[in-house]
């Protein structure tokens, strides 16, 4: 019983290794047409998934990396392939290309459901939408974001924007540094394929470094206040030694790819100039960098005395569009701080107030959602770990019995020993297979439950958007109170000067200056109000989009998770889905006893 299956499996494993080697040579930008549904590709996928899952969940990472660590005498080919799947030696994505969606759909969906509207991954296969080639679940996530959820299966969006990050390379800073060979940094190849006309091209690539991504992210947050902008990967505070390590670089590459794909999936941001420029313009990234802050600090320091001395207290309208920042806007910061104190502590009700009850309710809900998401995400991690441990221990148990089998066979004096050895071997085979089942189950579970983490990450973007709104509101309030104080000053001056016969030249001059200031401030106020309204609208539409897409994504997640739990693993899709693969193994074992 067991031995036949073994041979079969091993043959497949060898075959797939060859395939893998062939695939590595593929052109990275080619959409692969390999449609290999063999189980073993999934095993390979698991191994390469070990590095793909670059999220910082240690459970996940260890879940995946353990796949390549464990030795199974029955599965030595897998061992060999795991070495090859080392992403540092060859880009793993390519090997994963064929796998993720085809085989997943083949055995996640039992026949009864194949014609149902819900086809979690078939949709991806049909449409060349974002993320079809990445094994990472997140790319599916971002893909869905751009599709209307109601017609998930065969709807193809007519436009796509597919970004791939690859080919990390070390480069040297051009400036003469004291330390020879110092100041190296890593650049990544950002390749884009798109049919959106705005880009004026369908395939192109640029090299960017992480610093450029930070710049992109900062500029986007400035331009698109109120939108739920996906948060960028963290800067890492590690020593330069670590920075150069391949593992770190690979993690970063994965994170960058996820980030850019999320950006591409956002309906408004994908059309932004900033993103376009980032993706297309060769050479130096033509966006103002955030190191301008340094010059801003100087500027601010220079301006401050002038402002304090009352020479020019005017807030230019164009500045109003941005929140007060450190540096140049010191005075504005003071004013807005004063305003917010007045709002909070003095009980004085400002002229414009957050009135939108609906918004406040939604905000509460979002906070609550975040709490529950965080909790669920934690428990999901624990579940994954438990599944992983189960698989590991099953494997170890199987191994122990393999050893026992060998031992009994070698030392056999009685026939009963040989019989027992044969039984043990059967058992060990079943245990090892069960172990693989759990690993496969886990790999899929991770992909599905990852959706929880995705949305948890998005909460940060939501908070930022809400902060944009409140700071815009604060600006409006500040300008309004400033306006009113200016106007009352003007009134007082006029009243005073009207008492003097013949006019008071200096006072009149002051009044005129004041009137100028008032006009400018009035303009600024109008701009600020427009900005505030704009951000409010952004918030609203984004919240709607969030609710809509979240519902679809979570339902997909749930279905995928459940389907996976009962039919995943080494199952044959055509078999009755009433028993999991483990059950099948166990039943087969049972039959052999009873016979």
């Amino acid at each position, binding site marked *: 019983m067991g031995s036949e299956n073994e041979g079969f499996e091993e043959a497949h494993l060898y075959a797939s290794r060859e395939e893998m080697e062939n695939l590595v040579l593929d052109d990275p930008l080619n959409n692969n047409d390999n449609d290999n549904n063999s189980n073993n590709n999934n095993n390979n996928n698991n191994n390469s998934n070990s590095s793909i899952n670059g999220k910082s969940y240690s459970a996940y990472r260890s879940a995946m990396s353990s796949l390549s660590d464990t030795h199974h005498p029955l599965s030595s080919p897998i061992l060999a392939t795991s070495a090859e799947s080392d992403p540092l030696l060859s880009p793993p994505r390519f090997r994963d290309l064929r796998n993720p969606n085809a085989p997943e759909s083949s055995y996640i969906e039992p026949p009864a459901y194949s014609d149902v509207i819900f086809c979690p991954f078939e949709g991806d296969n049909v449409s060349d939408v974002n993320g079809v080639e990445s094994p990472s679940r997140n790319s599916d996530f971002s893909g869905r974001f751009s599709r209307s959820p109601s017609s998930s299966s065969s709807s193809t969006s007519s436009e796509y924007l597919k970004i791939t990050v690859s080919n990390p390379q070390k480069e040297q800073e051009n400036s003469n540094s004291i330390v020879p060979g110092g100041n190296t940094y890593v650049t990544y190849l950002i390749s884009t394929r798109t049919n959106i006309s705005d880009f004026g091209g369908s395939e192109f690539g640029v090299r960017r470094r992480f610093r450029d991504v930070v710049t992109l992210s900062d500029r986007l947050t400035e331009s698109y206040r109120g939108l739920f902008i996906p948060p960028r990967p963290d800067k890492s505070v590690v020593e330069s030694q670590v920075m150069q390590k391949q593992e770190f670089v690979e993690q970063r590459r994965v994170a960058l790819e996820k980030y850019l794909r999320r950006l591409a999936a956002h309906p408004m941001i994908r059309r932004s100039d900033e993103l376009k420029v980032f993706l297309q313009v060769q050479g130096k990234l033509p966006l103002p960098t955030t190191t301008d802050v340094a010059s801003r600090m100087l500027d601010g320091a220079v301006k401050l005395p002038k402002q304090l001395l009352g020479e020019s207290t005017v807030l230019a309208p164009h500045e109003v569009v941005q929140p007060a920042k450190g540096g140049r806007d010191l005075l504005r910061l003071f004013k807005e701080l004063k305003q917010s104190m007045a709002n909070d502590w003095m009980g004085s009700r400002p002229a414009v107030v957050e009135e939108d009850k609906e918004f406040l309710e939604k905000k509460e*809900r979002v906070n609550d959602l975040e709490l529950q998401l965080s*909790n669920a995400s934690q428990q*999901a991690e*624990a*579940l994954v770990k438990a599944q992983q441990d189960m698989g590991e221990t099953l494997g170890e*148990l199987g191994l122990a019995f393999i050893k026992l089998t060998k031992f009994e066979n070698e030392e056999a004096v009685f026939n009963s020993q040989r019989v027992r050895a044969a*039984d043990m071997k059967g058992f060990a085979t079943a245990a090892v297979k069960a172990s693989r089942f759990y690993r496969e189950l886990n790999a899929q579970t991770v992909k599905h439950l990852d959706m929880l983490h995705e949305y948890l990450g998005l909460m940060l973007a939501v908070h930022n958007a809400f902060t944009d709104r409140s700071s815009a509101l604060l600006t409006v309030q500040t300008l309004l109170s400033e306006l009113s104080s200016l106007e009352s000053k003007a009134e007082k001056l006029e009243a005073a000067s009207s008492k003097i016969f013949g006019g008071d030249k200096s006072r009149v001059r002051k009044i005129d200056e004041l009137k100028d200031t008032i006009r400018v401030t009035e303009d600024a106020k109008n701009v600020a109000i427009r900005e505030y309204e704009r951000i409010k609208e952004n918030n609203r539409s984004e919240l709607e989009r969030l609710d809509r897409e979240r519902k679809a994504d979570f339902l997909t997640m749930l279905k995928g998770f459940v389907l996976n739990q*009962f039919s995943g693993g080494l199952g044959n899709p055509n078999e009755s889905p009433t*028993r999991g693969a483990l059950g099948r193994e166990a039943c087969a*074992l049972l039959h052999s006893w009873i016979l």
Partner: protein
Amino acid sequence: MISTNRTLSASSQSPRSPSSQPPYLSVSVTDPVKLGNGVQAYISYRVITKTNFPEYQGPEKIVIRRYSDFVWLRDRLFEKYKGIFIPPLPEKSAVEKFRFSAEFIEMRRQALDIFVNRIASHHALQQSEDLRTFLQADEETMERLRAHETGIFKKPSDLMQIFKDVQSKVSDVVLGKEKPVEESDPEYEKLKHYIFELENHLAEAQKHAYRLVKRHRELGQSLSDFGKAVKLLGACEGNSLGKAFSELGAKSETLSVKLQKEAHQLLMNFEEPLKDYVRAVQSIKATITERANAFRRQCELTETIKLKEINLNKLSLIRSDKVGEAEMEYNELKAESEEATRLFESIVRLMNEELVQFQERKTLDMGIAFNEFARGQARLANGIADAWRSLLPKLEACSST
């Protein structure tokens, strides 16, 4: 593969204790009850004997016994039936905390039941007088015997034996014989090696089996926690999505229960048999030690006799009046030596017989254990599959609203 000779015994016995044919002697250990207070608390078991053996007082007898009574029985049998692999006892509990946990008590009860039944169905051991005492004596008698055996003050004969052992060890060293004398039978060497290695392998397998039980429990726990968290998330989401989450959470909690159940089954029907196997091998090791002792004794006596013989011859030439005494001593020694040789040879013979039995029995036992494992896992897998499958239509309903 496994012949259908597998006999599953009467309901009151666990599957591993073989039943006997008429004439029959069947025992069951049941009904654990906690007695006593505080530090001196212990568990007592009801031991029910059903037999038609003529040596027994009647067809049925019920007595109350505690763990140390079983230890007494085992020790007595070990003393009297050298060469036979005495069935192993479950260990004393190392950790105080678990001494009275339901699981531990149940595991112990099961193991004790198997222990007694194995003795009762062993063709030689079942004739033991000590067994009859154990199964029939009243509690006070038992207590007296138990205290006597396990008391701090050992029997004088034990002390003598210890003294002699030390003596011989010392003389060995003095005479330059560093290593104790051992048999030079290559097959026996192979066997010893086999036994020692087997224990290592089995211990490792058992360790993993125990871990697997733990994993089942942990998975159950995490499914329960996950279910709760998902339910909360559902409450937060509301409407059809919320309902979907709630359903998932509830299912997850249901599965948690299944897993805990399966963990228990795995413990009792797979891990414990493995543990039992380990203990059995350890019992064999004890017999190996006995055999070595018997061999050594035989050798010593042979040596001593040779010396005595030489002495005797010398004496018969020199001082004829001491010859008589010396002759008597010589004859005594000769008898002892013959006795020692007989004992040793019987041990060898018995061991060989026991080995055959042991191997066959263990193949049977392991077969049953594997069977149970497969059954349990199939049960679990099917249960899980069914549970999740039943959820799908509900999820569909949620997404269509």
